[in-house]
C-alpha cells in the first residue's frame, strides 16, 4: 500500500491510501473506497458508490497531473519550493496581476493607470488564434501599472496590467 497527502486549496489536507490487487487499485479516502480498473492507457473505470465513471489521468513531465472526470478537468501540481502552501497556481493566486491567456497581440487597452476596476470588467483585448479575446478582471481594485501598449506582442509570463486589490479581496 502507498499513501499520498494532498493539500487542497482552501480546504483541508486529504490523505489517500492506494492498494493494488491484481489489476485493480483500491483507493481509500475519508474511509471510503474507490475502485479503479484500468481501461486502456491513462483510462480507468472508477466505481464510486456503484456508479461507473470513466476517468482519464495523465502526468506531464513537469509533474502536473491532469484528471478528467465527467468532463471536469482538474489539475494537480506536485509541490515546488515556492508554490507549495502559498496558494499559487494558474488562477488561484496573483489576482493582482493580469496576464495574457496566451501569446498574442494587444489590440486595445481598455483601462488607464488609476482607474477603479471591478471583477469581470474587461481590461484589455488580446488577439490570438484569429479571435479578439477580452481579458477580464478577477478581483475588485485599482490599476497600479500598465506594462504594454496597443499593438505590442505579449507572452504569458509578463503581466500586462498590475492592480492594487481592494481590501476584502486580499484575504480571499
Amino acid at each position, binding site marked *: 500500500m502507498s499513501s*499520498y497527502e*494532498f493539500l487542497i486549496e482552501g480546504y483541508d489536507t*486529504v490523505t489517500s491510501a*492506494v492498494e493494488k490487487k491484481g489489476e485493480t487499485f483500491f483507493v481509500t479516502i475519508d474511509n471510503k473506497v*474507490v475502485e479503479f480498473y484500468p481501461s486502456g492507457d491513462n483510462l480507468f473505470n*472508477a466505481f464510486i458508490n456503484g456508479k461507473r465513471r470513466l476517468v482519464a489521468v*495523465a502526468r506531464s513531465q513537469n509533474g502536473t497531473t491532469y484528471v478528467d472526470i*465527467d468532463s471536469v478537468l482538474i489539475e494537480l501540481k506536485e509541490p515546488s519550493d515556492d508554490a507549495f502552501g502559498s496558494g499559487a*497556481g494558474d488562477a488561484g493566486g496573483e489576482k493582482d496581476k493580469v496576464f495574457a491567456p496566451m501569446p498574442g497581440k494587444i489590440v486595445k487597452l481598455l483601462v488607464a493607470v488609476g482607474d477603479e476596476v471591478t471583477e469581470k470588467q474587461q481590461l484589455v483585448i488580446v488577439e490570438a488564434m484569429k479571435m479578439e479575446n*477580452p481579458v477580464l478582471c478577477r478581483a475588485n481594485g485599482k490599476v497600479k501599472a500598465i506594462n504594454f501598449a496597443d499593438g505590442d506582442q505579449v507572452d504569458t509570463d509578463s503581466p500586462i496590467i498590475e492592480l492594487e486589490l481592494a481590501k476584502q479581496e486580499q484575504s480571499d
Partner: protein
Amino acid sequence: MKQLFNKILVANRSEIAVRVMNACRTLGVPCVAVYSDADRGSKHRFFADEAVHIGASPPRESYLDIEKIINAAKETGCDAIHPGYGFLAENPILVQRCIEEKITFIGPSPEAIRLLGNKVASRVKMADAGIPLIPGMKDSSVDVELYKKTAEEAGYPVIIKAAAGGGGKGMRVVKAADELEDALEAARREAKNAFNDDTVYLEKYIVNPRHIEFQVIADTHGNTIHVFERECSIQRRHQKIIEETPSMALDDDLRARMGADAVKVARAADYTNAGTVEFLLDETGKYYFLEMNTRIQVEHPITEMVTGVDLVVEQIRIAAGLELSEQVRNLTQRGHAIECRIYAEDGENNFMPSTGIILHYSEPVGPDVRVDSGIAAGMEVTIDYDPILAKLIVHAPTRELAVRKMIDALNAYKILGVKTSKKFMIDVMSHPEFMAGRTYTDFIEKHMNDRKLNLKVYQNIAVAAASVAAQAVPSSGAFSREGDTAITPSPWQTIGSWQIGDSINE
C-alpha cells in the same frame, strides 16, 4: 465504376482534411495532403495517400498560398482540389486559377462565390428574387452618419457586420446610439485583420432570434434540392458550439416554406455543389435571409446523420459532372442529430484559447456516435490555426435521447493537456430551457452567465485518480519520453505531498 478523378488534392488541414479524405476513400480516388511546418506530425498528413510540404506555419505562407496549392496539385498529378472550409474555401481566385490549370475545383463557380461572398451584393440579388431580408443598409459606406441614420430608421439594437465576413469575425451588436462609433471601429479593425477587407454594413438586430440554416445541393444538370435544416442557435461570441437537426422551431409548413426559399436562393445565384443558406428566425415565425455559405460547413455531419447522405461524396460526384441520384432527391429526416464542437479553449474561464501538448487522447465509440477529428496524443496545439480540435456527432430516435447520448459521448471523449468546453456544453444541454427547445442565439449570455462549477464534488475522485496515477501511469511527453522522472513509489514507504490546483476563475 470509372474513377471520378485521377487524384484529389485536399487543400486544408486537421479534421476537415481527414473528413474529405474519407470521402475520397469511399469513392476510391487517391488523395493528397498538403501540410505546413507546424503540421509535420499532423493526422491529416498521414491519413492521405501522399503528402506535400507547402511551407511555414503561418497560413499566408502555406494554406492560404494559392500558387503553392496549385503547384502541389500539378506536381502530384491531381486533377481536382477540395478546399474544405476556411482558408481558401470561399476564395474565387483559387477557383479561377483551377480553371486556368484545368483542375476541377470541388465547389461552386467563381461567379457564385463572388456574388454570395459579398453580403451587400447578395442582399440586392436576393431581394430581387423575393427572399425576405432584414431591414438595413442597402450598401456599405464609409459615412458614419449613414450608419447612424439607418440605425435610427431600423431601430436599435442594430448589428454591424463585415461584408467579407463569416464565423462571427468583424461582427458587433450595438444597443444604443452612443456605442455605434466604437463598434464600427472595432468591426472594421477585426474585418481588416481577418479578411484584409474592412468593408462593413449595418442592419436591424433581431431580438431573440434563432439561427436556422438549410443545406442545399445542386448538380450541373439543373437539379437543386435542400437537405433540411440545421439549428445553430447555441453560440458564444457569435461562434457556433452546439448544432442540432431537426430544429424544434420548425413545423412541416415552415420547414417547407424556408426550404423552398433556400432552393430559390441557390437558383438565384446559379449555384452548384453543396452550400448553406442561413436564416434568422424570429419569435413570431418570420424569417430573414442572412447569407449563403459557399462551402461544406463544420456542422454538415448532423445533416448526414439524419438523412444518410454523404455530403462530401455528393460534392465530389457533382464536381465530376454526375447528376443527383434518385436516392438523394427523395430524403426524409430520421431521428435527431446533435454536434458539439470541441475547441481548444477554457470553458471555465471565458473561453480563453488553450494551447499545449496533448498528453492523453481517446474518443467515444459505438453505434450512432461519430467523431471527426484531426488530432492525436503527442500533438501540440498551437496558436497558429483555428482552435477546433474535433467534432462529436450523435444520432438517436428523439431529441431527448440524442442529448443524453451526447452527454455520454462528451464524458467518454478524453483529452488531457489542453482545455475544452466539454463541461460547459454539458451544462448547456442539461439546462431546462435547452431541454424545452428554447434555443435562441442569446442562450449562453442569458442562461449560462451565472454558471458555477462546484469542484468540491470531484475533489476526492481527483485525489484518488492522482494517487493511482502516481503509482500506475508514467508521465507523458509528446512522442519522446526522455528525461522522464516519474515518481514510482514503492509500497509502504511513500508519503507524497501534493497540491490540488484548478482552473476556475473564482
